[in-house]
């Protein structure tokens, strides 16, 4: 199979940018000047990592950079296709960018996921199209004689093609340079015995790619240089009369997969606790130890923070301001109430409009990609990832923080704001970094996503 760098890279000229470095091809576009610097970064990452099989390294670096890229990143869209060690392809797409392999009916978009689309594919023999638009005219232009070897040029579409006369044939000599026609054998080349899988996706693109391939073939026949390499031996037997129907292409293996049944288990666990009161503290300690051992997020080990409160007659720790025990409902005797240090119970629930519910017993970061916040990465805060299709939720949008017995909502400097409506009151917008105390029934809205705070005392 032709080396990745031996592939011809046809382009369609456009307002975007096509770049190629050893082992990687990138197509990118900016919708605003605010994203120009981000575009430069993408190209720099590709260039710095290029050479050999940079696919996984590029995907990793792009993901890590995207997580922290600042303002204007939403105006950038780009896609990279790069070689991996196992002769595969690493595909990384952000925003409205498509990767098409017409012959395999593969059509992957950067819009498939909220953040980015990241795939490992088996590299096909057939053309690979990386496009800012699937507009037929744009792809038509890629049928020209262009062949980008290394560098950055204006363009909207890159088509990676086998050098030679058609898909699956010929190998380019490594010393070949841009612009020279690919060498081909002087005799007609054996045609494939069976037609390729019929096009199943994007007919316009497929047609355009076929044109590109045909043009490539015509060009090559007209300008065939002398034979420069040994010919493939002629077929020893005629092709079978009735070739078997082409099997559907196997799907690329997933990014990660792990066998479950029959796989070894790291260690035997002790039987589950009954859940009675006496066992709770012990179980909590055991869980902390287990969490540390398992490498679970650190917050699991930091549960049940110590807070001062009043005890009810049955020994439940309560907010000194409450008149009734939130656990058992009995009246608190405030006069004898001495402040006691104890484990703070959960302070309520965040009930999202989707029904997903979080227990308020730790601090949370809410957003489209809360895991990019270093407090989440370090385990100090938990993440509530929010799926967003309108672009109105920031990566890190808002925080829910526990302070003593108060639950606070804080806007994390979001682009589109955090709105709060206490029960029976109007919506108001928080200023960046402004915090507001959540009370029973307070509604909070970020983009199209909203949740209600339910406090345990409020429901009794």
């Amino acid at each position, binding site marked *: 199979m032709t080396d990745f760098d031996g592939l011809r890279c046809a382009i369609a000229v456009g307002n975007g940018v096509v770049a190629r470095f050893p082992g990687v091809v990138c197509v990118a576009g900016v919708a605003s000047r605010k994203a120009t610097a981000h575009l430069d970064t993408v190209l720099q990452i590709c260039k710095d990592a290029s050479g050999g099989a940079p696919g996984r390294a590029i995907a990793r670096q792009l993901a890590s950079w995207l997580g922290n890229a600042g303002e204007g990143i939403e105006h950038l869209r780009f896609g990279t296709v790069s070689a991996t060690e196992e002769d595969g392809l690493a595909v990384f797409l952000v925003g409205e960018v498509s990767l098409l392999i017409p012959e395999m009916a593969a059509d992957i978009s950067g819009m498939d996921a909220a953040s980015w689309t990241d795939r490992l594919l088996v590299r096909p023999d057939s053309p690979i199209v990386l496009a800012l638009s699937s507009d037929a005219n744009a792809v038509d232009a890629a049928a020209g004689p262009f062949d980008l070897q290394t560098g950055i040029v204006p363009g909207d579409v890159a088509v990676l093609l086998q050098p030679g006369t058609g898909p699956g044939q010929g190998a380019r000599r490594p010393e070949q340079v841009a612009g020279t026609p690919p060498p081909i054998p002087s005799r007609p080349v054996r045609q494939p015995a069976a037609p390729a899988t019929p096009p199943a996706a994007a007919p316009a693109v497929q047609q355009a790619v076929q044109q590109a391939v045909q043009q490539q073939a015509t060009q090559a026949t007209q300008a065939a240089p002398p034979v420069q390499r040994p010919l493939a031996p002629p077929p020893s037997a005629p092709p079978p009369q009735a070739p078997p129907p082409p099997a559907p292409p196997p799907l690329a293996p997933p990014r990660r997969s792990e066998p479950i049944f029959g796989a070894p288990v790291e260690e035997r666990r002790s*039987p589950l606790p009954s*859940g009675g009161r006496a066992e709770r503290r012990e179980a909590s300690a055991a869980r902390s130890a287990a969490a540390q051992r398992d490498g679970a*997020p650190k917050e699991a080990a930091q549960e049940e923070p110590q807070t001062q409160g009043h005890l009810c007659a049955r020994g439940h720790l309560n907010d000194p301001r409450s008149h009734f025990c939130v656990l058992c409902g009995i009246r608190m005797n405030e006069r004898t109430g001495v402040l006691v240090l104890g484990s703070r119970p959960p302070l309520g629930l965040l009930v999202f409009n989707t029904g997903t519910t979080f227990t308020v017993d730790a601090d949370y970061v809410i957003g489209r990609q809360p895991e990019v916040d270093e407090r989440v990465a370090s385990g100090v805060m938990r993440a509530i990832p929010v799926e967003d299709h309108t672009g109105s939720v920031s990566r890190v949008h808002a925080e829910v923080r526990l302070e003593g017995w108060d639950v606070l909502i804080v806007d994390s400097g979001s682009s589109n704001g955090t709105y709060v409506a206490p029960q029976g009151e109007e919506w108001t917008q928080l200023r960046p970094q402004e915090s507001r105390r959540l009370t029973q029934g307070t509604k909070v809205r970020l983009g199209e996503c909203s949740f209600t705070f339910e406090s345990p005392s409020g429901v009794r």
Partner: protein
Amino acid sequence: MTAGSATPTTVADYEIVEMLGEGNNGRFYRARPPARLGLSTEFVALKVFGERVSEQAYERGVRELRAFASVQSPYLVRIYDAVLEDRFAYAMEYLPLGSLESPTRPLRRDAVLDALEHAALAAHALHESGLAHGDITPGNVLLADDGGVITGKLADLGLARLLTPGNTLTGIGSAGSVEYMDPEMIGGARPSRRTEIWALGATIHKALSGTGLYGELPDDQPVLAIRKVLASAPTIHPDLAPDAAKLVGDCLAAGEARIGTAAEVAGRLAQISR
């Protein structure tokens, strides 16, 4: 917080045949497994989680699924494979008879009681191995036909709180799953034998009476559903046979009066008049 609703044609290297249902943080599909699994079965059930998960969360999920798969019980579904692409998914055996919630053919009362007993035994086996299921509902008691005899198999280990720490109730499906959750858990308690036995009681009640412990819950208004569950006491349907009603009551009981182990629940189910 959920993805779009279209059924994909593939998920990782699985070929999707149809959607089977939603619940507990994701969707179930009937799918053709990839050759790499070396399975002789034509179909598997593929659970695809609705939310993005990190690599670390995926690894926690894999550890939990492997622990689940290592538990020796004929009443637990077999899980084959976990994959991570855009989403986390895992493949398990496909059981064409559906679940106690939506069986593909009418079930006799004795078959329902058998399946419930099997689910309780499966839960006990998990507990003895240090695992909590976390989401026992009629929809997670799947049905297998062993030579004309119905067997219940517990499926869909609740991974939500493991994948997204702090997550108590999952959104996909309906808010209805709140009626199978011990209110103590909604209040922040972690899964234990005690909360699991509550869920078994609620599952038994629904499977035998056809109604939930809180009557009709507003499925599309999760806040109201949670308020109703927290503000009202569960009500056992008056048509339930006395021995079944007593069993459900003992599963829901407060304090020390609650049944102690899932094995005891199974034993009580075995004694209920068929």
